[in-house]
Every structure is written in structure tokens, then in C-alpha cells.
């Protein structure tokens, strides 16, 4: 089949602007071949080149004494956790594929992030997910579609994670109209490794053979990276061939074979084939190694006959790796891959001329300077629209609603309701390390081989980010850190997934910039590095852009198993203390959204200094063994936090907030930041109070854990009482009954 002629139409179809094409011409000094045009197209897509976001991403704090591999250097950052052990972790999006094919889109998102981790030489140990869908309530076609997407994504994650044998131990799911037609699927993986095991994705050693290992290349996922860098339209369903098909069994074999191989000292460099497949892995390894790579397409294991070089280069078939082998050690590679029944082939060699050269037998189809392709792509500083901070919410415009009715309504909001329906489908216990199951503030995982305890949380309240991207993203960092503190952990690193709309629209670009600056400020405040992450732009459906969603995943360390703390109340008579203030801010709250149908006002104020003092004070009393439970106040405020601490315990709580001088709905449902509900034994109460006082953090005794299974809250003259079992039933049944409808 003859290649098409290079016409302006073909160039535009490849997503290259006329200016970008000029740059291609000047790099090559000639017209590109059809294959080269495809290669530039995917490598210079937003997904691979970050051309619209890279100048912003440079603002992140990425260094620190514990950073062993920095953000952007390799497939994932690596952080020291002591005793010669380290963790590699990262989050990545698979939004567009999941919008058109939810099951495979989500499954391959999980597969991709797992490969990023074991490419670093780390053994993956757990997964998390951050998911966003449109509303799943009601009988509209849109709601039905959203339910189908939700069910498909969860099943896809379960399919891949369960089969490969990694526990999905935490996550978040929000439902909001802005994600209708453009769901978000962000998958996180963490792996563990010894310092000396860190593997590099560099093509080092001229003359070293280049091996292709793993699944055969097929036509699936053709130019998926370019697809992911466009807005979704009505026609996007026709892009289904751009979605890859995952095989978790193959990846399990690939994972074991690669770790076995990396333990042998035969490997000079290793790189997974993810976005832009063979193209990206060859030119990135050459660029990092300061070398060239030459491969022959005809040697690549292929699934179908008659695939063109263009198709083989741009395929995003899953479960494939590129391995640069030390010359003379080829036999070991062959033995290991034969043991695991995996295809492999020597497809090329490392060269000294800096070129990414692709042959199709005798014919050279691509001959491009690797570094120019990988690193000298276009960079754009987009225009950011001026931003006017939102006016604070006018409380007088919000008619008070009886808290007795409002609390059950909030617990029945799908974003707040129990996600058991989701995580029950995930194997969250395999690898026997899950010490705190999903559903508490942060998941806690014991890494047996390293004798380390890790905690992880993922958060982003996109309503806050929509109203004020800078404040919202700072809150996302603070809430992650707060969740870790509630579990007894100190943060050690952050990975972020920046999900935004089309950056060519100035208001969207402002959101991206403000979020990066907000996250940077947060990470500096908590003294944690950003170790890497992912940018997903063009998250738009015909109805417009999504709410800006800079998802934060934070990893923490727990020094002693005795410090592991959960949100559930532990014993009758325990004393309940609210750390922080009663609070008063309803702007951007779920109360305003779920009860009044309004997404407005200013999000709550965040004071890092206060926040850090609270986390430190909490950790101080946790380490002294004084804290029986800890739970932060987030969506739904204090009342939801108290109800959640009662669920599943058989206990109730009797709370008296005293005379607060404000409306009861404000007391119960405001989302002011820096607030944590703890319970302590009655004998420890005075010590806890004096410790908190000497730490300078606000706190107040608000009540007692009771044997009577009612949640009773008194504020001023009003008393509200709910049987916990009624609340729990609503909390647990909301999502199952919606999904069965």
C-alpha cells in the first residue's frame, strides 16, 4: 500500500499546526515521510510533549533530600523511605478512552500506570483511583449513560487490578454534571524498590542490542495520544479504534519477567511502550541516553499480517516494553522471557549518531534526531483570562433547611454516599498488606518486604476549584495531608493529575496556571516534593469544559503500627473533641449543592500555617497513644463527619455545640477547613486538651460516644436526633439502588 502524499490536509489531520510543520521541516531539512509525520504528530501531542503545560509545571517544587529520581526525569519519581528502601509512585489519566469505551479505557489506564512503576525497577504494591462522572440520578438518557460509564469504568479497573493481583486500596468518586460526556479516570500506582534497583529508561552503551518484549503489536490504540489531545465531540465514538484493549494476564507475566530480568544486571535501560508506543519509547530512550536507536519494523512481533510501518510505529497495543540489553547478555533475556512464555525479539541496536532510525527491511522510513523529537517540541505560553475572585456567599439568600432532613439528603448525595459498591468490586486485600480498608480517611498499607507502613490518600474538591482554582487546589493538597494525619502518617510526596479543559480558552488556561501555583504553594507549605504526574487537557464535551480537577495523591509514612488510626469510634464513653473551629463557610459546600442546587460563593479560606499546626498537634497526640479515632470534616461538614464515625461501630454520639450564635444549618454543614473530629478515652481527655492547648490549636470538647445508637446534635436551643441505622442505610444503599435501577 502506497503512503499518502504529504498535503496540508494530511498535516492538519495529524494535529500539527502550520508553524509546527515548519519546525518539522527545519529539523529534518526536508519533507517528512508519512511515517515521520505520524511520529511528530504523536510526540508533539499535548499528551506526550506537555507543550501547553510544561512552562507551568516547572513551578512545582520537585527536589528534597529524599528525592532519588526527580519528576520528569523518568517514568515515575522515586522517594527514599529509609533503610535502603524507596517508593516509586505516579498517577495518570485515561479520560478520553474511558469516555468512548469505559471498560477497556479504564482497564488500560490501570495497566499503563502499573507499567510506569515496574519500568522503574519497583515492584508495584497498591493502586488507587480518582473518578468523576456526570450525575447518575434520574431517568434521563444522560443519567443512564453516566451510570453505564460508571459501571464500565469500575468493572474495567476491577478486571485489570484484580487479575494482575494488586489491591486497589483507596480512591474517590464524585458525580457532577460538568463531567457528563467527559468522565475522569485517574489511576495511581505505588511500587517499592531498593535504592540500587532503580532502573533507567535510557538507551546506554553504543552497540547494545535493543529488545522488544511483551505482547505482539496490533492495530489497537492507533495514535491514541493524539486522540487524547483533542476535545471529545459527537463523532468521538468513531475513535473507538484509538482505545487499546488490555490483557492483565499478559501484564502480570511481563511484570514478573521484567523484575526477574532487572535483578540480573543484564539491562542497560528499560522503557514501557505506553502513549505513542514504539515511537515514544525508542526516541525517549535515545534522547535520555544521548545516543541513537535504530530498529527494524520487520523484526517486531506482530499480531496481524500486513500492518504498515506507520501502524506498527503508532500502535498503542498494551503490555509491551523496550529493553536495552548489555551486549553479550542476550541469552539471559531469552531464557527469562521463554520461562514466562512471552514474545520477545531483538529489533535493533543503540547507535552513536543521535538518530531515531526506523527501517522496514532495507528501506529507511524514519530518520529523525531523537533529542529534537523528544525534547525540542513546541512550547506554548497560552493566554490566561483575568480572574475575579467570587463574591462570598450571601447567607441571607440561602433559606435555612431543617438539619433533620438535610443530613439524610446529604448522605444520599452520590458524591458523599458510601462507595462500598465500588470498592467491593476491587480486590483490596491481595498482597496481604491492607491495614486500613477503603472507606476511612486514608488507606494504610504494610509493605512486608520492607517492613514499612505507608498511607495514601487522593483528593480534589472540584467545586472549590471551579469557584476559585487557586484556593481549591491548595485545599486539595491540605485535605490530602489532613487525611494522612488522621491516619497517623507524615506526608513524603505528591503526584498530581491536572484535568482541565481546552487550554486555548483563556479561562481554562487561567485555571491550569492557578492550580499549578496553588499546588506548588501547598507542597512547599507541607515540605513535600511533587514527584511527577500527568496533565490531561481538552476535557470538554459539547456542553463545555469540566470543572477544573487537579487531583492530588499524597503518600505518607507511618513510623509505628501503633500509630495507625481510623475514623470509626471505638468505645462507649469515649470523649469527642473537635480540633479547629465550629466554622461558618457554606460557599461551594455540598449542602449548598445537594440541598439548594447551587454551586456558588467563595470556597472556604485555607490557612496553611493553622493547618500544619493542627496536623502536627494531631500527630503528636497520636504518637503518644492518646487518639482512638480521627476523621476530618470535608464534604457535608461536621454532621456528615460525625455520622461517618458512627457507621459500622454500633455506637452513637451525643454532641452539644453550645451557643454558637449562628444558624443550625451553618453549624452542621459548613465546610470550613482545618477541622478534625477525634475521640479519646475519658481518662486521657485532660491530657489531650492540654497537649492541644500547648500546641496552640483551637479545640473544643463536643460530646461523647454513646451505647445508644443515635446521633444526637444539640446546637443552641435545638436538638436533632437521628437513629444511626437509618442514616447508615441511606449512606450504604444510595449507590447500589441507583445502579440497580
Amino acid at each position, binding site marked *: 500500500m502506497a503512503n499518502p502524499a504529504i498535503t496540508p490536509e494530511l498535516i492538519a489531520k495529524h494535529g500539527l499546526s502550520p508553524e509546527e510543520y515548519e519546525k518539522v521541516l527545519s529539523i529534518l531539512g526536508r519533507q517528512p515521510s508519512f511515517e515521520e509525520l505520524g511520529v511528530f504528530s504523536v510526540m508533539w501531542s499535548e499528551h506526550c510533549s506537555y507543550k501547553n503545560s510544561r512552562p507551568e509545571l516547572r513551578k512545582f517544587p520537585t527536589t528534597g533530600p529524599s528525592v532519588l529520581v526527580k519528576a520528569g526525569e523518568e517514568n515515575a519519581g522515586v522517594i527514599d523511605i529509609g533503610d535502603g528502601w524507596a517508593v516509586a509512585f505516579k498517577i495518570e489519566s485515561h479520560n478520553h478512552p474511558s469516555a468512548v469505551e469505559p471498560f477497556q479505557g479504564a482497564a488500560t489506564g490501570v495497566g499503563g500506570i502499573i507499567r510506569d512503576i515496574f519500568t522503574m525497577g519497583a515492584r508495584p504494591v497498591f493502586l488507587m483511583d480518582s473518578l468523576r462522572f456526570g450525575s447518575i440520578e434520574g431517568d434521563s438518557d444522560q443519567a443512564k449513560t453516566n451510570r453505564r460509564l460508571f459501571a464500565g469504568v469500575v468493572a474495567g479497573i476491577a478486571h485489570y487490578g484484580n487479575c494482575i493481583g494488586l489491591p486497589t486500596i483507596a480512591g474517590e468518586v464524585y458525580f457532577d454534571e460538568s463531567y457528563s460526556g467527559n468522565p475522569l479516570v485517574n489511576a495511581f500506582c505505588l511500587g517499592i524498590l531498593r535504592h540500587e534497583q532503580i532502573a533507567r529508561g535510557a538507551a546506554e552503551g553504543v552497540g547494545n542490542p535493543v529488545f522488544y518484549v511483551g505482547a505482539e503489536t496490533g492495530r489497537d490504540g492507533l495514535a491514541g495520544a493524539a486522540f487524547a489531545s483533542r476535545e471529545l465531540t459527537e463523532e468521538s465514538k468513531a475513535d473507538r479504534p484509538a482505545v487499546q484493549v488490555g490483557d492483565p494476564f499478559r501484564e502480570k507475566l511481563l511484570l514478573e519477567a521484567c523484575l526477574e530480568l532487572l535483578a540480573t544486571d543484564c539491562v542497560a535501560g528499560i522503557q514501557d511502550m505506553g502513549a505513542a508506543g514504539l515511537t515514544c519509547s525508542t526516541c525517549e530512550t535515545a534522547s535520555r541516553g544521548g545516543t541513537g536507536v535504530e530498529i527494524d519494523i520487520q523484526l517486531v512481533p506482530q499480531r496481524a499480517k500486513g500492518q504498515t510501518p506507520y501502524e506498527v510505529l503508532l500502535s498503542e497495543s498494551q503490555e509491551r516494553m523496550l529493553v536495552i540489553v548489555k551486549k553479550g547478555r542476550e541469552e539471559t533475556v531469552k531464557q527469562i522471557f521463554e520461562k514466562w512464555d512471552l514474545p520477545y525479539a531483538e529489533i535493533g541496536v543503540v547507535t552513536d549518531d543521535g538518530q531515531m532510525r526506523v527501517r522496514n527491511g532495507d528501506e529507511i522510513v524514519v530518520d529523525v534526531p531523537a533529542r529534537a523529537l523528544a525534547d525540542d517540541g513546541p512550547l506554548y505560553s497560552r493566554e490566561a483570562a483575568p480572574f475575579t475572585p467570587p463574591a462570598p456567599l450571601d447567607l441571607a439568600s440561602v433559606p435555612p433547611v431543617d438539619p433533620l432532613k438535610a443530613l439524610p439528603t446529604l448522605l444520599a448525595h452520590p458524591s458523599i454516599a458510601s462507595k462500598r459498591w465500588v470498592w467491593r468490586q476491587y*480486590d483490596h486485600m491481595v498482597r496481604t498488606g491492607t*491495614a486500613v480498608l477503603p472507606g476511612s480517611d486514608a488507606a494504610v498499607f504494610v509493605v512486608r518486604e520492607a517492613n514499612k507502613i505507608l498511607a495514601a490518600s487522593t483528593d480534589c474538591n472540584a467545586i472549590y476549584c471551579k469557584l476559585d482554582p487557586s484556593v481549591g487546589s491548595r485545599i486539595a493538597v491540605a485535605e490530602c495531608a489532613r487525611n494522612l494525619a488522621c491516619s497517623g502518617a507524615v506526608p513524603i510526596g505528591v503526584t498530581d493529575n491536572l484535568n482541565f479543559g481546552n487550554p486555548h480558552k483563556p479561562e481554562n488556561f487561567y485555571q491550569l496556571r492557578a492550580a499549578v501555583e496553588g499546588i506548588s504553594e501547598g507542597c512547599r507549605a507541607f515540605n513535600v516534593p511533587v514527584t511527577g504526574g500527568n496533565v490531561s487537557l481538552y476535557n470538554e464535551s459539547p456542553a463545555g469544559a469540566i470543572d477544573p480537577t487537579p487531583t492530588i495523591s499524597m503518600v505518607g509514612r507511618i513510623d509505628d503500627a501503633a500509630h495507625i488510626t481510623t475514623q470509626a469510634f471505638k468505645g462507649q464513653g469515649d470523649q469527642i473533641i473537635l480540633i479547629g473551629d465550629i466554622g461558618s463557610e457554606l460557599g461551594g459546600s455540598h449542602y449548598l449543592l445537594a440541598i439548594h442546587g447551587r454551586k456558588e460563593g467563595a470556597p472556604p479560606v485555607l490557612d496553611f500555617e493553622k493547618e500544619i499546626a493542627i496536623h502536627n498537634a494531631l500527630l503528636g497526640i497520636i504518637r503518644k497513644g492518646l487518639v482512638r479515632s480521627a476523621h476530618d470534616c470535608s464534604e457535608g461538614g461536621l454532621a456528615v463527619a460525625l455520622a461517618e464515625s458512627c457507621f459500622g461501630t454500633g455506637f452513637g454520639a451525643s454532641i452539644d455545640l453550645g451557643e454558637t450564635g449562628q444558624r443550625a444549618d451553618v453549624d452542621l454543614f459548613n465546610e470550613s477547613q482545618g477541622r478534625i473530629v477525634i475521640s479519646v478515652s475519658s481518662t486521657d481527655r485532660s491530657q489531650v486538651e492540654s497537649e492541644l492547648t500547648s500546641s496552640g490549636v483551637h479545640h473544643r470538647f463536643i460530646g461523647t460516644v454513646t451505647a445508644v445508637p443515635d446521633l444526637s446534635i444539640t446546637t443552641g436551643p435545638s436538638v436533632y436526633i437521628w437513629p444511626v441505622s437509618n442514616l447508615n442505610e441511606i449512606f450504604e444503599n444510595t449507590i447500589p439502588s441507583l445502579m440497580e435501577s
Partner: protein
Amino acid sequence: MRVAVIQFPGSNCDTDCQAALASFPGVSAEIVWHKETSLAGYDAIVLPGGFSYGDYLRCGSIARFSPIMGAVRTAADAGVLVLGICNGFQILCEAGLLPGTLMRNNGLLFRCESLHLRVENTDAPFTSALRKGQVLEIPIAHGEGNYFAEPETLKQLEANGQVLVRYCDASGNVTTEANPNGSLGNIAGICSHGRNVFGLMPHPERVCDPILGGTDGRGLFQSMIEAVEKPKS
């Protein structure tokens, strides 16, 4: 005591089982690759959970053709203890070492959660250290754990006391609500007629360490270890 933990391609609870077994004094648990053909010298054999061969076609249906299965059968015939957990149970059924089969959960979804099991019979090397009627809290994690057997087979299983554990509620009542997958008779695990082969869907290896929230899985392993050690002493 030496225990072989068989590693099929796609096994993913192999190291979990190894760690759980190794937490008992005097037990050495070794991973044995499925391409091996001998299990000589092992006192017990564990087929761990996972997705052998991706569970493509049907759970366990490809793994039963693995080279090691000949040695597993020989050992089982010779009376060596063989324990199949989750995918291991499915493989034992596919291999004909246990009767019946495991179908798709009646709710059609994968389920991972902690559940209660009632010990039905202690006259087996896998339950001898437990009490009849004892309630254990052990998690499940499977999409295909719906036990089915022909009525005649089921009758024999019950008559011979081969049903060792059933799904029950926290008080030990065997109810429809406590059945997570539609298994006939709430069956969670059965042993062979010779009582030395035991398969169950729940994962005892996940509750052998207090930091993971429970130790109810230890009794099953303890029974097995005692059964092996006793004749020696």
C-alpha cells in the same frame, strides 16, 4: 515441615500464602513453578489464589493442564495434604480432584469483603484444630465462587461430611442473606472423599496477622500443620 506453594502463570496470592505459612514455627514454604514435574519431599501442597492463565476460557480450566498437575495428582492419591484457595479451589475442581464446579457469582459482580464462615466438620486435617460450629471471619475475593454440584454429588458430600465450611452470619446462622455468591447450601469449602484435598473460596492467608485486622485464618493452617506433624512425632 516443607510446603510447596504452586505458582501458575497468573497466580497472585502465592507470596501471600508463603508469608502466612512461614509465620508458623518450623514451616518452610517454597514457591514451586508450574513447569516443574515433581513434588517429592513436600509434606503439603498449596494451590494459591489468582487468575491462572488470566482465567480465560473458564477459571482453572487451563491451569489443570500445567505440567505440575501430574505431580499434584500423584501426591493427592498418596494422601499428601493439598489445599486450594480461591483460584486453587477452582483448579482442583477442574482437575477432578474435588467434585463440582464454581460458577459466576449470582450477583454477577466480583466481591471482595470479609465474611463469616461456620466450621461444619472437624474430622478433616484442615479443620481438626477448630471447633464444630465455630464462626470464623475470613475475606472472600472472587467473581466466580458460586459452588454447584449435581444433586447426587451434593447428597454424598453432605452425607460424608465433606462440606467443611459454609457462609453464615455473625452468629453462625446459615442464611440466604449470608450467601455472597449463590453457592448451593452456602458451601464455601469442601474436602475430597479421602479428606486430604481441601478447596475453599475464602482467603485464610489474608487473616493470619493482627495488623491486617484478624487472625481467624490461622486455625485452618494450624490444623494442616498439626496433621502433618502428628504422625511424625
